[in-house]
């Protein structure tokens, strides 16, 4: 991955300037811009990514800078978008594809499962699929039906894909650069409700390119580990703060990458704390939490004082906006789970 290395160097070389607040959407857009400026093979395509700048404005300004040949408003057909992107990648381009909302990626699933994820394997490495599939995901934005799905389980169950999701403005930039630099297809899950989250972040000295596959400890603690990602990170951070009042010192791990999964960081944390709760807003049954809890248990069984618990969305279709707050795991639900970690039996 020479591109990634080069990118990293370029970024490090940039002079650090005073950081101003930027949104996650802006950081993502900046990452696209920088990648496009560096590598003419990078193309952005999707519905409304041009003049409109995408419905979340992530691609704002790109068509002006790079023209319609590289920033393309496609016809309205997700399988067609991803399918033509496969052909473009076959010819050596690096498409960055936008799916407008999570639920609208479903029509593209045959292309994703049967081609994007398998082309490298099918051709014994002769035909890699360096592409990024951007999927705004999750709820909490008051969206009507089909605008708030958490579809990460579908992607995780598909070998051949990388699946990453940022939870901070810095990671949004760094992970996007890494995703574009990757020679494998990356499903890039963008937490909708964090698009407008802000952080002091200087676009002139952007965050370093994160290698894909590394979780990070966002908060150190000794009582138990909250394992989370994307939209649920702020919830867990808040819960960890609140837990202090109950005498619990919680560690928070932000996975950042669901595939590959960073067993090392996660297991190390749980071995230290002896207790863990997985938190995500995707439905619980068949969701990411099962896999995570199972692998943590496989690796840390004799360190565990209690079963790894899961706090997740209910096993229901995503509810209408006026009811979504009852569905989404909030601070209280996380703390309730922590309380159920069998403290009386503990060390």
């Amino acid at each position, binding site marked *: 991955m020479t591109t990634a290395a080069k990118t990293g160097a370029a970024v490090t070389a940039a002079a650090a300037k005073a950081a101003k607040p930027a949104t996650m959407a802006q950081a993502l857009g900046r990452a696209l811009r920088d990648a496009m400026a560096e590598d003419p093979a990078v193309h952005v395509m999707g519905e409304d990514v041009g003049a409109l700048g995408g419905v979340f404005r992530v691609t704002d300004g790109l068509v002006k800078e790079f023209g319609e040949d590289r920033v393309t408003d496609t016809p*309205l057909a997700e399988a067609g978008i991803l399918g033509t992107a496969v052909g473009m990648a076959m010819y050596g381009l690096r498409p960055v594809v936008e799916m407008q909302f999570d639920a609208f990626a479903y029509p593209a699933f045959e292309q994703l499962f049967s081609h994007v994820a398998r082309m490298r394997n099918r051709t014994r490495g002769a035909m890699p699929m360096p592409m990024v599939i951007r999927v705004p995901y999750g709820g909490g934005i008051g969206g*009507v039906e*089909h605008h708030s799905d958490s579809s990460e389980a579908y992607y995780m169950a598909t070998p051949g894909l990388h699946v990453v999701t940022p939870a901070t403005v810095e990671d949004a930039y760094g992970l996007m650069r890494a995703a574009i630099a990757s020679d494998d297809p990356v499903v890039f899950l963008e937490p909708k409700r964090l698009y407008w989250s802000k952080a002091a972040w200087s676009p002139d000295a952007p965050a370093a390119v994160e290698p894909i596959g590394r979780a990070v400890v966002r908060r150190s603690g000794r009582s138990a580990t909250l394992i989370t990602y994307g939209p649920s990170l702020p919830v867990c951070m808040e819960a960890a703060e609140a837990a202090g009042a109950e005498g619990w010192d919680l560690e928070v791990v932000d996975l950042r990458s669901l595939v590959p999964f960073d067993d090392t960081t996660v297991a190390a944390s749980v071995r230290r704390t002896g207790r863990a709760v997985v938190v995500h807003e995707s439905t619980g*049954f068949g969701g990411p939490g099962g896999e995570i809890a199972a692998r943590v248990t496989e690796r840390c069984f004799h360190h565990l004082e209690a079963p790894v618990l899961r706090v997740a969305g209910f096993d229901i279709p995503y509810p209408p906006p006026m*009811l979504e707050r009852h569905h989404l795991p909030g601070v209280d639900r996380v703390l309730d789970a922590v309380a159920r970690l069998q403290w009386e039996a503990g060390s």
Partner: protein
Amino acid sequence: MKKSTMTVQEMPGAAAYRPTPPPAWKPRTDPAPLLPDSEPYRVLGTDAAGRLDAALMRRLYAELVRGRRYNTQATALTKQGRLAVYPSSTGQEACEVAAALVLQEQDWLFPSYRDTLAAVARGLDPVQALTLLRGDWHTGYDPREHRIAPLCTPLATQLPHAVGLAHAARLKGDDVVALAMVGDGGTSEGDFHEALNFAAVWQAPVVFLVQNNGFAISVPLAKQTAAPSLAHKAVGYGMPGRLVDGNDAAAVHEVLAEAVERARRGGGPTLVEAVTYRIDAHTNADDATRYRGEAEVEAWRTHDPVQLLERELTQRAILDADAVRQAREEAETMAADLRERMNADPVLDPMDLFTHVYAEKTAQLREQEALLRAELDAEGER
């Protein structure tokens, strides 16, 4: 092996060779009857307007006025935070209203997210029609009671539903036609293709109404298709295509009525493209100035469906000042009622989350229900 080393001259029957046409090569039918007119069909402002049905036109007019008012009122409700979002059909009322009026009681309407107005024109309570967009539930009415499918958001996915329902009704021997609505952008989806093909193969009693309003959010028609018209897509399925001026309520009504009648008679499906224009932004959340100029919008304002009909009917003395006033008053009454009822908070029960996932709650859902109930009790909400 023997056969494949024979020369054709040696082959038995080779002399008598004449490529007879087995099935894959059946004589092709003439596509001419499937092709749409080269210009959108119009009635208003043409000689055809001489034979307008006065009663029907007055009804159409009243519904257009009401429809316009409904659109402006719903948009106003988004500003007041009473609707999560509203995709307005301002400028497209002729299509919305005609689609509703051509159907009989037992027929079915399959609207998209933009077509609340069609549902309302069909008789649905305006508040129920807005439930999805207010956000208290995904659908605010019983589709079977009204024979209106839920407003459909994933583009073009409602089209195969309409085909399947129409087909099922025909198998049962019921006199039912399904009319399905979709946008110009939606025609690019695979589901559009599959639905039209199934409909034609099955000769299902279904009418596809494409409202070509020029845009799919920001993407103009020219980036959506290179076809002579969207109606020309009909040819590839072996069904007739009709191109109509979507702002000419009389023309849209006539073309749709013909198509519905044809379907009812067992003549199979029809694709209708109504050329219209989305006067408002995609939704209240959209900023249309990013992708189109005001001049274009202004040009279309001069081709307004309400005004076009009003002028024609007034000129032909089908409509008088009284009727115009009455239509407006009724529209204002509807708007006031809508405003008032939408200003009341809907009654919500969080426990509904678990009620209709399955016919019977699974043990798993009962556990989760108990968890939520405990939370709500703790909050003191219930």
